[in-house]
């Protein structure tokens, strides 16, 4: 296994864990995960770019309670692996598209893990109600190891798919360019929808509007 592949697997596992089970210091944010993955592959710009576009989708996520949401950390690693050291105009759409698929797979895997955790808790209910500390620790560690397995599996799947997309089945130019337009446009729309959802119902729309005006000025000037 190459050093780069090993590092990407490790990084993908770390960011996968950080989403829920780990310290949640937000290295799982796609623009963080993607940039670091790009750096591993010697193309920071590509990693940062795909990570930034995936971040637009992540801005619409509200990880409250039992909500299900995509795992954009390993998704950004897979996207960076697809786009690194390739012409960005051609690689962007397929890379982010793959990232979205991996993110969705990560979401499904997380749901299954939570169900597995629930079954484990249910089986250990008698010991837990008896205050058995060893069983409590075992149940908790089961969840952590399970999430580690989930993260490394999703990352491995993403890296495998990235290799296939780059080397075995690169999409034709027309599709790749169209894919780029779609993932960027829908990403912007998703982030905008998320911004309205966060602020609209709480009377902060005026602040959002002020920010948009300032952002438009900034966009025109830069």
């Amino acid at each position: 296994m190459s050093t780069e592949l090993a590092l990407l697997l490790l990084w993908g596992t770390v960011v996968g864990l950080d989403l829920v089970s780990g310290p949640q210091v937000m290295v799982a944010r796609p623009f963080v995960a993607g940039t670091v993955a790009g750096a591993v592959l010697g193309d920071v710009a590509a990693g940062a770019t795909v990570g930034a576009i995936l971040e637009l989708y992540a801005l619409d996520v509200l990880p409250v309670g039992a909500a299900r949401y995509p795992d954009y950390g390993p998704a950004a690693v897979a996207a960076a692996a697809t786009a690194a050291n390739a012409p960005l105009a051609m690689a962007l759409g397929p890379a982010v598209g793959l990232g979205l698929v991996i993110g969705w797979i990560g979401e499904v895997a997380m749901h299954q893990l939570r169900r597995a955790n629930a079954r484990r808790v249910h089986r250990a209910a008698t010991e837990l109600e008896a205050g058995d500390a060893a069983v409590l620790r075992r149940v908790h560690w089961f969840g952590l190891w399970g999430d580690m397995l989930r993260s490394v599996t999703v990352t491995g799947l993403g890296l495998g798919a990235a290799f296939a997309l780059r080397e075995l089945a690169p999409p034709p130019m027309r599709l790749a360019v169209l894919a780029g337009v779609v993932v960027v446009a829908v990403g912007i729309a998703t982030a905008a929808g998320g911004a309205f959802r966060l602020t609209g119902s709480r009377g902060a729309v005026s602040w959002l509007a002020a920010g948009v005006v300032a952002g438009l000025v900034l966009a025109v000037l830069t």
Partner: protein
Amino acid sequence: MRLFTVQASWNYERMVGIGVGFATEPLLEPLRDERGDEAHRAALARAARYFNAHPYFTSFAVGAQARAERDGVPPHQVERLRQALVAPLGSMGDRLVWAGWLPATAAIGLLLVVAGHPWIGIAAFLLLYNAFHLAIRIGGLVGGWRLGLDVGRALGRRELRWGLSAAPAFAGLALGLALPVVARWGAMLVAPGAWWAVAVVGAAAFAVTRWFLPALGGLRLALALLTIGAIAEVLWP
């Protein structure tokens, strides 16, 4: 340190309860010598029951419950304390962090990344975000332990109340500032001569995900459009 893995065993049955029990365990250990093995086991069982809160704010519950148990508070009062904490620790954390500080700092980081300074953007985001994150985790544990049953006073602190009122404004301002800049950057990236195509698709996507099919979400819409595009490419190469 255990608080940093509080959600590792999250499940649909006890939510974050097992994690709270795991994090509380070291603080309950002295109960073995203070009140005997049975009291220790009973306290640990209570600590690991159903609980649902924002992960950072569980530190308030861990500190408060451990203190209540060590002070010999009757079990039914400890249970009531846990039940009373679920709603505020959940809603406060969601509003302050998930819907406030996180999108605000992420928007700032994103702005710096698209401006061509990815490492500065990442550093700014991680430092800003985690300064607040760690303050909640550590402050919550210390405050909960110090106040025990009176932990509600810690939750009513002026700084937290101010934060709750300022969070949506801060998030709105930061997101609003970032959106046009990132939109322009993205459009120039994929369609430098046809930014209008991005605008049209984006407007349609916004309408679909906001009004027509809000349950669909951006990710699924993008995947659906990409799938249609791939099928069309196969049928009409």
